[in-house]
């Protein structure tokens, strides 16, 4: 285990962390403002990946595919909000969980009908395929660096929109008192639809960036969704800052655990035992982390005021 390897895995962890953040930001915004638990957020991630794949095939250009895929996911998100979720805002969380669970079944199967159940592998244009040299002896895939950069850029943009623009002001106002915002003449229904579409596009962005790194397949959204839950539970539901911190923690812990837990354990216990205990422990590490955080702070690290 060299320091270059540790550094590389740390970058991988950060890159995974910013992807988790893109998902968590949308989920936590929708929860904070509409008080809606949306299990189907993972489906939007999947839809983003598939639509970008289809659009890239259709246009033959990666960038056009990405742009079209993003726009289409935004529309799908707004459509889902108008057709199904709008009726659920006043319901309790149990109903929301169940209804969006139904949506997941629907989307997974729909995608399987259109594109088949087998995993698709999306390819990158040549200008994204290279490696960059970090320091002598360490080369890192350029694409992962781009993902990391885009994620951080979006995080910055999100902060700017929420903290410095009129839309962000409405979003924050809606989160603290929606009745009042409605009474002041703001079209709250439209605001909700826009915020939901916005969150969907962020999930779609995470999904289409994940495509070339992981496989694109039905059910891919649920794998990441549950980790995103861990992120927002650790960070505190409704807090974007919490989502960022939680995402980075979970991304790094999960990645480093998978990479180094087995060799680390092998130095402590017998190698065959480490061979089986290492991966098991690595895959449950973030859940253990969450249990510890909740045992200490039941509302997450950055618990929101209400």
């Amino acid at each position, binding site marked *: 285990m060299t320091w270059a390897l540790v550094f590389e895995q740390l970058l991988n962890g950060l890159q995974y962390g910013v992807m988790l953040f893109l998902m968590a930001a949308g989920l936590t915004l929708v929860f904070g403002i509409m008080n809606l638990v949306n299990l189907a957020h993972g489906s939007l991630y999947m839809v983003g990946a598939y639509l970008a794949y289809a659009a890239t095939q259709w246009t033959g250009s990666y960038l056009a595919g990405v742009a079209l895929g993003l726009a289409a996911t935004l529309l799908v998100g707004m459509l889902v909000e108008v057709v199904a979720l709008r009726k659920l805002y006043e319901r309790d*969380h149990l109903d929301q*969980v169940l209804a969006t669970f139904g949506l997941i079944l629907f989307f997974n199967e729909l995608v399987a009908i259109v594109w088949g159940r087998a995993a698709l592998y999306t390819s990158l244009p040549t200008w994204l395929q290279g490696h960059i040299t970090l320091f002598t002896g360490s080369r890192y895939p350029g694409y992962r660096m781009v993902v990391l950069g885009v994620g951080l850029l979006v995080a910055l943009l999100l902060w700017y929109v929420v903290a410095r623009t009129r839309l962000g002001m409405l979003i924050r106002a809606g989160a603290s008192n929606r009745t009042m915002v409605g009474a002041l003449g703001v079209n709250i229904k439209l605001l909700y639809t826009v915020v939901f579409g916005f969150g969907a596009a962020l999930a779609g962005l995470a999904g289409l960036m994940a495509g070339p790194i992981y496989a694109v397949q039905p059910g891919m959204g*649920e794998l990441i969704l549950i980790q995103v839950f861990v992120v927002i*539970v650790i960070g505190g539901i409704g807090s974007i800052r919490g989502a960022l911190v939680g995402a980075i923690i979970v991304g790094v812990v999960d990645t480093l655990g998978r990479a180094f837990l087995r060799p680390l354990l092998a130095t402590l216990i017998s190698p065959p035992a480490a061979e089986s205990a290492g991966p098991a422990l690595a895959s449950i590490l973030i859940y253990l982390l969450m249990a510890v955080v909740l045992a200490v702070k*039941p509302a997450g690290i950055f618990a929101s005021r209400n």
Partner: protein
Amino acid sequence: MRKNLVLWAVAVAVLVLLPPLVIAIKQPYYIDLIRRVMIFAIAAISLNLILGYGGLVSFGHAAYLGIGSYAVGILAFYGLPGGWLQFAVAIGASALVALAIGAVSIRTSGIYFIMITLAFTQMLYYLGISVAEFGGDDGMRLKARSQFPPLDLGDPVQFYYLVLVLMLFTVFLVDRIVNSRFGMVLQATKSNDARSRAIGFSPYPYRLIAFVISGAMCGLAGALYANHTSYITPNLMSWLQSGEFMFMVILGGMGTAAGPVLGAFALLLVEELLKGWTEYWQVVLGPLLVLSVIFFRRGLAGIFDKSDA
């Protein structure tokens, strides 16, 4: 439950008469199907205790189904096919895990509780996948069915009646629990947390005990299910399974004795129907479930029991 004794009697009579009937018409497959439905009904009944009466929305109930199954499978793997031991371990282990998960989870509430129970079950699911000794991802075959002499679980009809008896027993047990003093306090903490505190009941121990009882009962369902399929996979603990249990309870009617049973029958029979119809049955089931949540709020039990609103 008491108000509907006639309906219960009819339902039980139908279930008792089913095996000779389907054997007479040479469709023994239905014995298998209804047995599976009843096993899941036991799991749904156990979830109803905490979800329907206690207001604890556990999104991780499949964990105990898995633990019950794996307890039976692992004991059989090590050459211990005794049914009493296997079922005792299945129930005991589920209770212990429920105690550990509940102790942390019940400190939280609302959406946090939903997510933390989900995450704990996910943890067990990944544990099941990564332990290669017991089949890992592929699962493990049950070496031999649990032995309850003179009963033979290999005989579909005998096993069917055992499951039926156990299902009715769990319905009865939950009915006794919720109508006891303990159950009254549990329901009070659901309807108003602050008031039950004010009259001197701290909700935490009541919720935790209900959570443990519920987990133990679901462990029983798991032990039965291992014998039903003779095959145990981590998928038993998948979050889709947990979601299905929640649907059974909601569809049937939360906080009613008949609800989870009706819900299990309705959901699994509709699934069976759709599966026979198209490979892509979930594309139909998904929207059906969404519609049932939006428009069908009181559940199936509400149709039969109008007085109990």
